[in-house]
């Protein structure tokens, strides 16, 4: 074969490979990116359906209507009865601004569009949809309002949930915005440096501060042969950095329980070196830190990058919830729930049921256990310590008369200079009905002082009013 022919054939092979790669690429797009592309809010086809379908309503756990659509002229108009309260949970659905929150995530359900395109087509032929489905949330409207009023004037987020079932009773993130006024306020909202569009509960990453000591404490319990005693002198030099206890308190001879009760920093920083970053990290992993939490809304993963090369100071800082550790309030609520229910990390649930227009329940989201964070014996050990925190430690502001409360406070340093105030806890301790995570962003005071009383009110309300 002459050189010329050889080269021609080579050129032909190049061309054919290009065509084949086109075929592979287009298949790849369809198979792997198809769904995401179709649901992009710039895809106007999403809206075509809307014009002929009555979008479903959204109810709270008791059946109270929060959002509904009604016919107006040729189309429909959507009424957000509590525009601010559910701005992050429910979100919005507008032609010009797209969709967010549950309006986006449950778009198909609300319009009664089947995910499977083929089934959809057949459905459209036989019985075209005119009405969407209703979704019933796990949220308790009264509690949601109460929680929001407790956060008034502050910045931050609160998640209150059932520690056994995973159902979320309330989820609030401040600053928020008014969904029903979106058009008018849009410029202001999108330019606000405090990011009101951000759902801090699921996507806000904060240093957890002393609340992270729960993880470190579990790691300590699981470290065989660890000497639990310690002589606290108020400060400790780890790797060149001097860690101090709050208010320069000297706690003297303490064990793990006392250290957690009084939230002694030096104890945990010193013990962390002995426990090792990998052990702490592994425990953190079991509580869904470094993992994506499956949820009805988009979430950010909490981070504890323990696999990196961390110096002693970093490890010590991580042990007390500083350094590179960042968590979401949702994640902390799951941790609190786990310690209350015997160590199981449950899947958080926001949508309880999808109900057809005829009243038939189409789908129920039921409880699912994501992981065993810690064994039941150690969970109960930690629980006892958390009870002591409330009884006599840093969390006394969360005490409820005649109710055994368990919790952990936190005061997280951050770059703004004003500490975040944290509280994570559950009540009643022996058979918890509610777990709560509170973070007050840049509050400038301790968790025990400002976050604990808010948590207290929330837990009291749930115990008295919500029965499952």
């Amino acid at each position, binding site marked *: 074969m002459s050189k010329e022919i050889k080269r021609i054939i080579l050129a032909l092979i190049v061309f054919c490979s290009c065509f084949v790669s086109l075929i592979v690429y287009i298949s790849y797009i*369809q198979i792997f990116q198809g769904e995401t592309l179709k649901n992009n809010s710039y895809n106007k086809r999403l809206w075509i359906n809307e014009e002929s379908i009555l979008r479903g309503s959204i109810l709270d756990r008791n059946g109270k209507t929060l959002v509904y659509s009604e016919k107006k002229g040729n189309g429909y108009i959507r009424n957000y009865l509590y525009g601010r309260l559910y701005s992050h949970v429910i979100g919005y659905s507008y032609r010009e601004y797209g969709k967010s929150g549950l309006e986006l995530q449950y778009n198909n359900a609300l319009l009664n569009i089947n995910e499977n395109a083929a089934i959809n087509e057949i459905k459209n032929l036989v019985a075209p949809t005119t009405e969407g489905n209703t979704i019933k949330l796990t949220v308790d409207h009264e509690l949601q309002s109460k929680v929001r009023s407790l956060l008034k004037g502050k910045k931050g987020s609160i998640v209150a949930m059932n520690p056994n079932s995973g159902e979320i009773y309330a989820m609030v993130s401040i600053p928020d915005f008014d969904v029903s006024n979106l058009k008018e306020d849009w410029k202001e909202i999108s330019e606000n440096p405090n990011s009101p569009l951000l759902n801090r509960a699921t996507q806000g990453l904060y240093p957890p501060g002393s609340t992270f000591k729960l993880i470190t404490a579990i790691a300590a319990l699981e470290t065989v042969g660890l000497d639990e005693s310690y002589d606290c002198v108020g400060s400790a030099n780890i790797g060149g950095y001097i860690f101090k206890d709050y208010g320069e308190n000297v706690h003297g001879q303490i064990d793990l329980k006392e250290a957690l009760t009084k939230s002694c920093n030096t104890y945990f920083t010193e013990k962390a070196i002995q426990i090792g970053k990998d052990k702490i990290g592994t425990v953190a992993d079991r509580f869904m830190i470094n993992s994506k939490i499956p949820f009805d809304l988009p979430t950010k993963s909490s981070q504890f990058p323990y696999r990196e090369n961390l110096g002693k100071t970093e490890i010590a800082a991580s042990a007390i919830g500083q350094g590179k550790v960042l968590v979401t309030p949702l994640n902390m609520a799951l941790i609190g729930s786990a310690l209350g229910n015997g160590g199981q990390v449950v899947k958080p649930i926001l949508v309880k049921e999808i109900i057809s227009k005829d009243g038939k329940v189409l789908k129920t989201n039921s409880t699912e256990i994501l992981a065993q964070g810690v064994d039941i014996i150690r969970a109960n050990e930690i629980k006892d310590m958390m009870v002591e925190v409330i009884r006599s430690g840093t969390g006394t502001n969360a005490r409820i008369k005649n109710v055994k409360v368990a919790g952990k406070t936190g005061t997280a340093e951050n770059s703004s200079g004003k500490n975040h105030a944290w509280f994570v806890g559950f009540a009643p301790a022996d058979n918890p009905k509610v777990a709560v995570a509170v973070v007050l962003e840049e509050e400038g005071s301790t968790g025990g002082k400002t976050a604990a009383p808010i948590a207290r009110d929330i837990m009291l309300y749930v115990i008295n009013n919500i029965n499952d």
Partner: protein
Amino acid sequence: MFNKAIRGKSPRSLLFIFEVLSLFLLFVYQNTRVDRFTIMTGIGLILIISLSNYLLIKISSGDNYIFLIVTMLISIGTIMIYRIDEGLGIKQLIWLSMGILLFFMTYFFVKYIKGWQNWIYLYVGASYILFFMTFILGSRKKGAINWINLGNFSFQPAEITKLLIVFILSSYYANISKWKEIKNASYYLMGVIYSFILLLFLQRDLGMAMIFYLIFISIQFIYEEDRKLIIYNIGLLIIGGIIGYTMFDHVKIRFQAWINPWKYIDRQGYQITQSLFAIAEGGFFGKGLGLGHPYFIPEVYTDFIFSAICEEMGIFTGIGIIMLYMILVYRGFKIAISQEETFFRILALGISILFGVQSLIILGGVLKMIPLTGITLPFISYGGSSILSSFIALGILQVSSEEISLRRVQDEQRD
């Protein structure tokens, strides 16, 4: 013909069935708006295609698959265009009929006129004239000055230059022994070609510039003895690319839109993202003719006709179209290999490469595999200049598929 259809083996019968069915479907879709004129045009299309295919066998002893493939492509294209806009659909039919006529005319013209390989100066001269005409008379359309309006009728000179460049390269390399005697002849050639590319660049017709470049470098790869010229070419491309990106905004915008269209989704990324939505919506089998929303796609008649086809007729149809182009290019290459006469061999190669490169560039751009350029999908996109020049190219390819020595014999017989 019918028992072949029953056996299901003849592609011609399949094509016929396809056209009849889709026409029927479109008429049901149109429902009340179907008038006699439309029915006539539709039947006209089917008749023209069947007739041409039949005629071709009688006239030419060469390849008849390339015409068959092209008729399938134009059928799919016309049906889609007609579905989107009946007026344009009918105009497309008219262009196609003219195209087929031009195909036969080109066939006879190229076959019976001798000496094509000797007129390289004519080709070069004509190209420059066309370029200067564009600069002087040209009007801007969609950011590129590459159209000339003559009253009611507008055409793209670059479509003709596209063919001329294939002729230039074929004449040069077919007579390489003669040219080699002139010192630095290959550099002159490069100079001429690059001047074309530069002119196109200045006209902002980046897609066409890329086509010219790729045809040149492919032919060079096969035929240029002096291998280092190819390296120079590649080097120039890299340098040119970097200069283009840094110095010209419109190049930069294209790149940005390609790499992350989501960031610029309501500006430069708009076109490509709408195209991707359409393709995703279609699924594998499509939504069904008439059930999609092609009017959400910008430039849907020309650049993005493929996306509309994918939305309504599915990824499988899209893959089918890609396969048809691949077979067309393959067939063209095979015609080239079988052709003993060097000039026609390079001509066949040049045209196959032209079809290949053009379809790859626009399909790649529409799928976001490469940056988007404003060129048409041959035989499928709407556009008079594109269709006419593509059919002329096909006619040339048809001539190249015949045995030239056979023709020599037949000519001698006649004398």
